[in-house]
Every structure is written in structure tokens, then in C-alpha cells.
């Protein structure tokens, strides 16, 4: 009873304070104008007239994420990478080889899942490949594909990973391939410019005032927005297999892990 009284008093206090604040106009007038910085980003997200400033992507959020503030996203990828390394370190020595075959859920659920998985993969790839044109991108696509691993573990049991040939080291290898692809796109301007005797910046997308290097914005009149599509696809690979690793570890049977924890204690 006390719990509900506290909850009701919080709701009521919030509503009353909000009403009084609005009535007195204490927060001042609502800002209806867009901020200067936002205008700058919005005006340059797709602006063929200013090639040294634009990201050539109609999606302003992806432009900021992978071009205007690209280094931020690079560090974010590193943090996510470190979290998975930490999870792998905690589970060091745990092997997927002695996972027993489980019966999984009913036949109806299995058939429906079998139909859903290809659709899920198609949606994920589409979110990644259109990330520079519509809302979405590598991370969102990776999270969408991660659903496949959860479906596999829940509906078909963790043994389905072994049957499909997805083991932990392969997932780590695919994830590392995604991260290497990101590094490749980051360093390409520097390497090519060094070979041609000019200069360029890390993560450079198009020509700058003092650098002529530029990724192609179009491929046969199809907009690919320079580095953005490559970053999205590489991040998609890295994030989806990162999630695969996490869900593979979390879907291990408790006895398997406990057996390993016991062995660790002996040392």
C-alpha cells in the first residue's frame, strides 16, 4: 500500500510542478528555431555545391556518426569491442564442443522460425546497405541480425550453433574482419595519398581544402556517400558477430559453465 502511495505522490507532484511551471512561464518561451550547429550539419549533410564540407548523405544522423564526428564512433566501436573481449576473458577456456543437443521448442515454432530467419537477415542487410539514405546503419542492422542468434538458441537450442558451423572462434574471426574493414577505410586515404606523394586525413571522405583525395560518392549514378556505406557494412559485420558471441556465451548450459568454474578454482 505504501509503495502505491509513494508512486501516486511522485506522479501528482510531477504533474502539479509541471502545471505551475507552465502557468508561470518559468522555463521561458519554447525554442522554436533550430540551433546554429544543427543548421550547419543539416545544410551540409547533402550539399553537392560544397564538396569539401558535405558528407553527401541525405541522412543527417549517419553523416554525423561516420563523417562529421567519425572519431567518436570509432572510439564507440572500440568500447563495444573491449566489452566483448571482457566477456570472452571471463569465459576463457569454455568450449562449445561438449554442448549437448537440446530438443528445442515445438515443431510449429521451429517452422515459423525457419521462415522468419531469412526475412530477418534480409531486413538487417537492407538496414545496413541503406544506412546512408534512410534512418538506420551498421549498428542498428547488427542488432537486427543478432535476433537470429537469440531465435536459434531459444527455438532450436544452443546446439544449433554447432550444427550450423558457427563456433566462437569463427564468430570472433568474422567480427575481427569487420573491425579490420573499418580500419582499412580509415587508413585508405593516408596510404593512397602517401603513394601518390600528396596528403590526406584519417577517415577523410571527400576532397578537403589541402587534400585532393576523395572516395566516390556515386557508383553508376547510385548514391553510396563515399565512406559511409563501407563503414555501415563493416560495422554491421562487427556488431552482428559481436552479438553472436555474446548470445552464444549466454545460451551455454549452466552445468557446462559451472564445470569449468570448478576447474578454474582448482588452479
Amino acid at each position, binding site marked *: 500500500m505504501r509503495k502505491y502511495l509513494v508512486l501516486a505522490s*511522485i506522479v501528482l507532484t*510531477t*504533474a502539479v*510542478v*509541471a*502545471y505551475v*511551471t*507552465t502557468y508561470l512561464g518559468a*522555463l521561458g518561451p*519554447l*525554442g*522554436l*528555431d*533550430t*540551433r546554429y*550547429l*544543427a*543548421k550547419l*550539419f*543539416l*545544410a551540409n*549533410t*547533402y*550539399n*553537392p*555545391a560544397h564538396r569539401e564540407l558535405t558528407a553527401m548523405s*541525405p*541522412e*543527417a*544522423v549517419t*553523416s*554525423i*556518426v561516420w563523417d562529421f*564526428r567519425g572519431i*567518436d*564512433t570509432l572510439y*564507440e*566501436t572500440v*568500447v*563495444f569491442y*573491449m*566489452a*566483448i573481449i*571482457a*566477456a570472452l576473458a*571471463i*569465459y576463457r577456456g569454455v568450449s562449445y564442443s561438449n554442448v549437448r543437443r537440446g530438443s528445442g521448442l515445438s515443431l510449429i515454432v521451429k517452422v515459423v522460425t525457419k521462415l522468419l530467419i531469412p526475412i530477418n537477415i534480409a531486413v538487417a542487410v537492407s538496414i545496413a546497405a541503406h544506412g546512408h539514405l*534512410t*534512418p538506420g*546503419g551498421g*549498428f542498428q542492422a547488427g542488432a537486427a541480425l543478432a535476433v537470429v542468434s537469440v531465435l536459434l538458441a531459444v527455438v532450436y537450442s544452443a546446439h544449433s550453433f554447432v550444427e550450423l558451423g558457427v563456433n566462437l572462434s569463427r564468430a570472433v574471426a568474422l567480427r575481427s574482419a569487420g573491425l579490420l574493414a573499418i580500419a582499412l577505410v580509415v587508413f585508405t586515404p593516408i596510404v593512397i595519398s602517401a603513394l601518390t606523394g600528396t596528403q590526406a586525413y584519417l577517415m577523410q571522405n571527400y576532397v578537403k581544402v589541402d587534400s585532393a583525395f576523395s572516395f566516390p560518392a556515386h557508383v553508376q549514378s547510385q*548514391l553510396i556517400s563515399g565512406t559511409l556505406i563501407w563503414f555501415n557494412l563493416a560495422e554491421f559485420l562487427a556488431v552482428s558477430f559481436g552479438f553472436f558471441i*555474446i548470445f552464444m*556465451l549466454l545460451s551455454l548450459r549452466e552445468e557446462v*559453465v*559451472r564445470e569449468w*568454474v570448478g576447474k578454474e578454482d582448482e588452479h
Partner: protein
Amino acid sequence: MSTSFLENFLITLTLYNILATAGISLYGIVTRPSVTKKIISLTILGDTFNVLAIFIGFRVFSVPPVLLDLDGSVEKLTTFATSAVDPLPQALVLTAIVIGLAVNLFLIFLALQMYRLYGTLDSRRIRELRG
């Protein structure tokens, strides 16, 4: 264009709701003895601040930050730049979500390991354990 009293009230109410949720989740992190509940509270706190960031970038009478006409005309770009919501908080929130997820994953694995080693997730009992 100006906003009505009801619109102003609803926007203010959203702001106070966000602040109240942040307060409740902070209370949860500090007072709940269960590590699982601490992690849940931390997730709610992180999401609350993400909503606050999006709320700061929101503009009444605005459109999403996706350009629909790609002919590159100055008029259309100017209209887009003055009518779309602020895309920067959205991009920062995207980064914050990923980092929050990484932190949560790490905490969940630590909590799992803690349970396997100590047999409890009650922080009061874990504190009493020695060795």
C-alpha cells in the same frame, strides 16, 4: 507559429517526467541490495538521459533530419536546415546507446560470474564474504 498552453504543459510534463524517472532510477541504484536490480536501474537511468538528449534536440513543428529532395537546390536545403530537428543529439544518443550496451553487457557477465562464485547476488551478503 506559437504553441498553445496545452502543448507547453505537455512538453514541460515530459521534461519533469524524465527528471523524476532519473531520480527514481538513481534511488534504485543506491538502495536496492540485489545486483540484478541495480543493473536494471542503471539501464533505466541511461535510457532516461538518452531520452533527455533527444528531448533537448526536439523542435516543435519540425521534420525528421532526412533530406527527401536530392536535387541540391539552395531553397530546399535552406528549408530543410531550418525545419528539421537537431540531428546532433540523435547521433550522440546512438553512440551513448552502444556504449551503454557495452557497459551493461560487461556488468551482466560480471553479475553472472559473481553468482557462480558466491551463490548470491545480494550485495549485503557479498560484502560479508571473505577470501
